[in-house]
């Protein structure tokens, strides 16, 4: 049992820090919460690629470094603390690459993996999973992929597609079996879909923070070559189930709002206790201590899950539990910050009176999405109960 890092790991962390500090000083990016949603910067991704920091846990034969998941969490912890712009490669690194490694064809591996680890152009991915009638109940997808010779014809609609407007490819879940006798979870396949193909339309959806990160994506008889299907037909859910656990509980889940956390801490340390009054300060202090405990626990959960993966175990329960916990922590963080900062946290960006230059108002507006994205807290608790504790489904 050792709750600290090896010398090598500390060295690696420092290396990442130094790189990020240099980039910050050079003005490559600014630290602002929500970097993952908006920081799409291929040039920056290339710099990370040059250092071997994309696909670092992948086997060497695929251009990876064969490093541990704990090392990857160390990298990402530093990245997200400063909200470096990693959106260009993040999805490819976190789940597209690993899915291709596990289920992809030789051609897919040869084509995509080396390009991913180099962060080459025109390779940003988005996820095409959710539909208007398939949210938490993902097996309900209606988008169809009908075989036509050596191709599939895709027809249907996706929604809540983060970064769809900036992406080159989508990782698509579509129905390939239409026999009502076959269970729904054995009727879907996964595809790599080039979003430049004729028949693909991406339309923006503004979220309640007034930002455009979501999209709707429509497919009007899009013809996709069969070599873009991933794995055998109708095995999508097997693949998703096998893969999700590895991607669910990255450290980003507890660090999406780290700048708020840091600024709040600074704010509280500099508070004029005479002005705020001893009673208010005593509440603030108690709440901040609780927040700190919750944050440190979230961080331990993420490292523990990564370590579980490194032990060769499948972290279904650990990952679901960690994500559900961390998402809820982030909501409490933003809520607490608005209460400590008071009504100035209602002000949006653009006035000097705004708490944390409007970042706090923005983060509070983003908060409801944390417990929804990537598996709602309810779905995650189902996983903990059914797969972790073996409670009956019926």
């Amino acid at each position: 049992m050792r709750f600290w890092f090896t010398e090598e790991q500390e060295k690696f962390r420092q290396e990442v820090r130094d790189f990020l500090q240099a980039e910050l000083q050079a003005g490559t990016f600014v630290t602002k919460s929500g970097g993952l949603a908006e920081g799409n910067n291929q040039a920056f991704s290339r710099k990370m690629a040059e250092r071997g920091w994309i696909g670092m846990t992948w086997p060497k034969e695929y251009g990876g470094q064969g490093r541990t998941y704990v090392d990857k969490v160390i990298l990402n912890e530093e990245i997200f603390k400063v909200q470096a712009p990693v959106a260009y490669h993040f999805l490819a690194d976190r789940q597209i690459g690993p899915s291709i490694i596990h289920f992809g064809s030789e051609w897919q591996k040869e084509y995509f993996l080396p390009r991913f680890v180099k962060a080459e152009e025109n390779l940003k991915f988005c996820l095409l999973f959710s539909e208007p009638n398939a949210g938490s109940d993902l097996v309900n997808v209606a988008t169809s992929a009908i075989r036509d010779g050596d191709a599939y014809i895709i027809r249907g609609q996706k929604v809540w597609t983060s970064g769809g407007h900036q992406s080159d490819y989508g990782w698509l879940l579509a129905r390939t079996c239409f026999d009502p006798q076959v269970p729904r979870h054995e009727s879907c396949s996964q595809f790599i879909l080039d979003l430049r193909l004729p028949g693909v339309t991406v339309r923006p959806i503004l979220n309640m923070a007034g930002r455009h990160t979501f999209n709707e994506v429509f497919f009007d008889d899009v013809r996709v070559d069969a070599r873009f299907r991933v794995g055998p037909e109708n095995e999508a859910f097997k693949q998703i189930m096998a893969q999700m656990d590895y991607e669910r509980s990255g450290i980003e889940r507890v660090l999406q709002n780290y700048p708020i956390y840091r600024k709040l801490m600074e704010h509280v340390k500099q508070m004029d206790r005479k002005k705020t009054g001893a009673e208010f300060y005593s509440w603030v202090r108690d709440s901040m201590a609780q927040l700190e405990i919750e944050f440190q626990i979230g961080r331990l959960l993420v490292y523990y899950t990564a370590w579980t993966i490194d032990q060769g175990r499948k972290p279904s329960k650990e990952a679901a539990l960690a994500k559900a916990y961390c998402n809820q922590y982030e909501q409490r963080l933003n809520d607490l910050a608005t209460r400590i900062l008071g009504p100035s946290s209602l002000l949006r960006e653009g006035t000097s009176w705004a708490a944390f230059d409007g970042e706090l108002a923005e983060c509070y507006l983003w908060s409801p999405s944390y417990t929804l994205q990537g598996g709602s807290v309810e779905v995650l608790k189902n996983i903990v109960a059914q797969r972790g504790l073996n409670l009956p489904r019926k």
Partner: protein
Amino acid sequence: MEFSLREETKMLKSNAEKFMKEKSPSSFVKNILKEEKGFSPALWKEMADLGWLGLIHGEAYGGSGGDFFDLFVLFEEMGKALLPSPFFCSAVFAGLLIQGAGDDRLRKEYLPGIVQGKRILTVGLRNEQGVYDHPDPELEARETGEGSYRIKGIRLLVPYAHVADQILVCAGLRKGTKSFGPTLFKTKNNGPGVRVVPLHTLTEEKQFAVTYTDFAAAPQDLIGSPGKGAEVIERIMPRLITLKCGEMVGGLSRVVDMTVDYVKQRVQFGKPLGALQVIQHTCADMTTFLDTARLIAYQAASLISAGLPCAKEVAMAKAWCSDVYKRSTQMAHQMHGGIGFTEEHDLHLYYKHAKAAELEFGDSWHHRQKVGEEMGL
């Protein structure tokens, strides 16, 4: 980051688990609580023979000079079974005080007996509100002649005082008009000037009020240096608190197991309760409490065992474990319904233990203040 246990620790843990399962089933625990002695001398001897009481005491005193972390996992296992015994008050609390007060004469005199389980010591460090008051003790010691003292005052919630060979106390020492501050003494549980009265507590464990009325203490009863008592106690406090956390994690894990088993078996509405989503989510929350409590408590224990700074981590552990253990026992009662509210069922043992453990060494609010301090707030 390395979350697996050393082989030796794993072995100790599984031996302890087996021992507790075989020898300390809940029926046995409930019987012991009803008995006058409040512990099983036979099991106490076995625990001593296994070397558990001497785990963290030096080889010179018959101990094994082992790793604190091993003692921690032992407490986790003991927390699962809740076997009542003077382990904590004697081998740990009193043992560490004697170890830490820097008096080799005392160590030689008492540690071997403690380690062999032949001598039981206890501590009387709580005031009439049940609060540890060593920084400014309400108990008084007056020097009446060269090296002779009179101790006066009341100590509450003194575990196993009725069988204790010695009761260690911390009293404010005065010589004439001069005040020396908190000072450790050892006292007897009988004779002139001391009265031991049993208390009926929520956990049913053997706890006593000890009243000193001009109890006469000799020079050799003074432990360590005058005025240094609080320091000695504070120095061992992180270890005591962390072991308490280990015990809580053990108790919490039993509560989760018990609840998950019950909702799998109990059929209502034509299906197991555990098939209902609201029940599943409660169980998922309880598991989250358990996993997080375990991580934060293990973190504190591993830092202590490596001799690294741990003030913040220990406070975080006690704050979190206190809250989530208690909360889980409340949720478990809700999941169990009426059966969990009976004497016959085991759940009440944990419900009671969670409350007592929460209030021992300060609750979550108390420890959040410490976390705040460590954060520079």
